[in-house]
C-alpha cells in the first residue's frame, strides 16, 4: 500500500512539472484582461441575493446562486491573474535606476501579492458558498491594504511618467 502511495506521489510530481512547463509558456504571453465592474457589482449584490432567496423556491435559488458563484469565480480568477501580471512587471520596475520608482514598485508588488492572497481567500469563500448556498460568509478585513495599493499604484504611475523608462506606463 505504501509503495502505491509513493509511486502515486512520484507520478503526480511528473504531471505537475509538465503542467508547470506548459503554464510557464502561457504566462509568457500573459496580458491584462479587463474586468466588467458593473456586471461584477451585480453579481456581488447581497440585497439582490436576499431578494431572490425570499421570492424564489429553495431549489431554484440554489441553482441560481451556484450559477452566480461560477461566474464570480471567473471574475476573481481574472483579477488574480492580473495581480500575478503586476507582480511580474513589478519585478522589472523594482530594478529601475530611479530609487523612488524602485521603492514604489516594491510596495506595489507587496500589495499585489496581498491581493493575490485575498483572491485565494475569496475563492475559498466562494467554494464554501457553492457547496452550501445558504451560507453568507463574513467579509475579509484587508480593505485598507487595497486602498493603500491604489494610492501606491497611482504614485508609481506619476513617478514613471516623470522618467523616460519604457515601463513608465506599466502600472
Amino acid at each position, binding site marked *: *500500500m*505504501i*509503495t502505491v*502511495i*509513493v*509511486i502515486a*506521489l*512520484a507520478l*503526480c*510530481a*511528473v504531471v*505537475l512539472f509538465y503542467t508547470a512547463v506548459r*503554464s*510557464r509558456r502561457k504566462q*509568457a504571453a500573459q*496580458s*491584462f484582461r479587463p*474586468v466588467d*465592474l458593473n456586471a*461584477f*457589482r451585480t453579481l*456581488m*449584490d447581497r440585497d439582490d441575493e436576499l431578494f431572490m432567496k425570499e421570492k424564489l423556491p429553495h431549489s431554484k435559488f440554489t441553482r441560481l446562486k451556484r450559477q452566480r458563484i461560477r461566474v464570480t469565480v471567473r*471574475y*476573481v480568477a*481574472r*483579477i*488574480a*491573474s*492580473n*495581480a*500575478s501580471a*503586476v*507582480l*511580474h*512587471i513589478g*519585478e*522589472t520596475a*523594482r530594478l529601475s535606476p530611479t530609487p523612488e520608482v524602485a521603492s514604489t514598485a*516594491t510596495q506595489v508588488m507587496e500589495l499585489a*501579492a*496581498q491581493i493575490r*492572497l485575498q483572491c*485565494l*481567500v*475569496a475563492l475559498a469563500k466562494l467554494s464554501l458558498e457553492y457547496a452550501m448556498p445558504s451560507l453568507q460568509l463574513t*467579509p*475579509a478585513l*484587508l*480593505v485598507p491594504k*487595497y*486602498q493603500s*495599493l*491604489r494610492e501606491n*499604484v497611482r504614485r508609481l504611475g506619476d513617478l514613471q511618467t516623470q522618467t523616460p523608462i*519604457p*515601463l513608465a*506606463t*506599466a*502600472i
Partner: protein
Amino acid sequence: MFAAFLGCMLSEHMSLRLVSHDVWIVGIALQVLLAAVMLAKRTWQTYPMFTAYVFFNLFGAAIGYAVFGNKVVYFYTYFACESIGIVLGLGVVREIFTNVFSPHPALRKLATIIFRVAVVALIVLAGGVIYAQSGNAKSIIHAVLLAEEAARIVEVGLIMFLFLSSSAFGLHWRQNVFGMALGLGMFAAVNLVAVTLIGHVSSTTAQAFNLAHEVSFSTSLLIWLGYMLAPERATTAVEVPKRAQLEQWNQAVMELISR
C-alpha cells in the same frame, strides 16, 4: 552513479548494463559541460548551493569512475556521495524557495509556515515508509535504497510544494531558478520510482529502471544546461498594462471582499 551502483550489484543482462554504463559516461561528460558553463556564468555568486550540488555530483562521479573496479570501495563511495548529494539537493530546494519568495515579503511568511508544515508531513511519510518496509530490508543494499527512498520522498514533496505554492500565489520564476527546480524535480521523481520499485521487480526490470534513472539524470543535466544558457525573457511592451485597468480589478476585489 546509481546506474553503476546497481550495475555492480546486478551482474545479469549485460546489454542493459552496458547501455546504462554508457549513459553514465555521457552523464559525466554533461556534468563537465554544465560545470564549465556555471564557472563561465559565475553562478556561485547567485546560486551557491546549486553550484555546490553540481560540482559535488561531478566530484562524486569522478571518484566513482576511479574506484569502479572495486565493488566494496565503490559501494561505500556511492553511499557517502549519495548521502551528501541528497543533503545538498535539499539545500538547493531551500535556495529555490528563498529565491522565489524573497521579493514578496507578504507571501514569504505564509509560504514559510506552509513549507515547514510540508517538511514535517513529508518526514512523517518518509518515516512511515521506513517503518513499513524495514522488514524487507534484509541486506545493507536494501537498507541504503530504503534510506534513499525516504530522502527522495521529502525532496520530491518539497519541490512539488514549491511549484504548487508559486502557482497558487501567481509568482513568476526566473528562468534559471525554474530550470533548477524542474531538473532537480524530474531527477528526484524518477529516482524515487526507481528506488521504490527496484526491490520488488526482477533483475531485468531492475536494470531497465536503472537505465531509466540514468537517462533521467542526463535529461536533468540537459535541462539545467538549457536553462543556464537561455537568456532571461524580458518584459515586452505588449505585456504593459494600463493604469485604469489595474484600478478596475483592484476595485473589483475590494468590493467582493467587502460585501
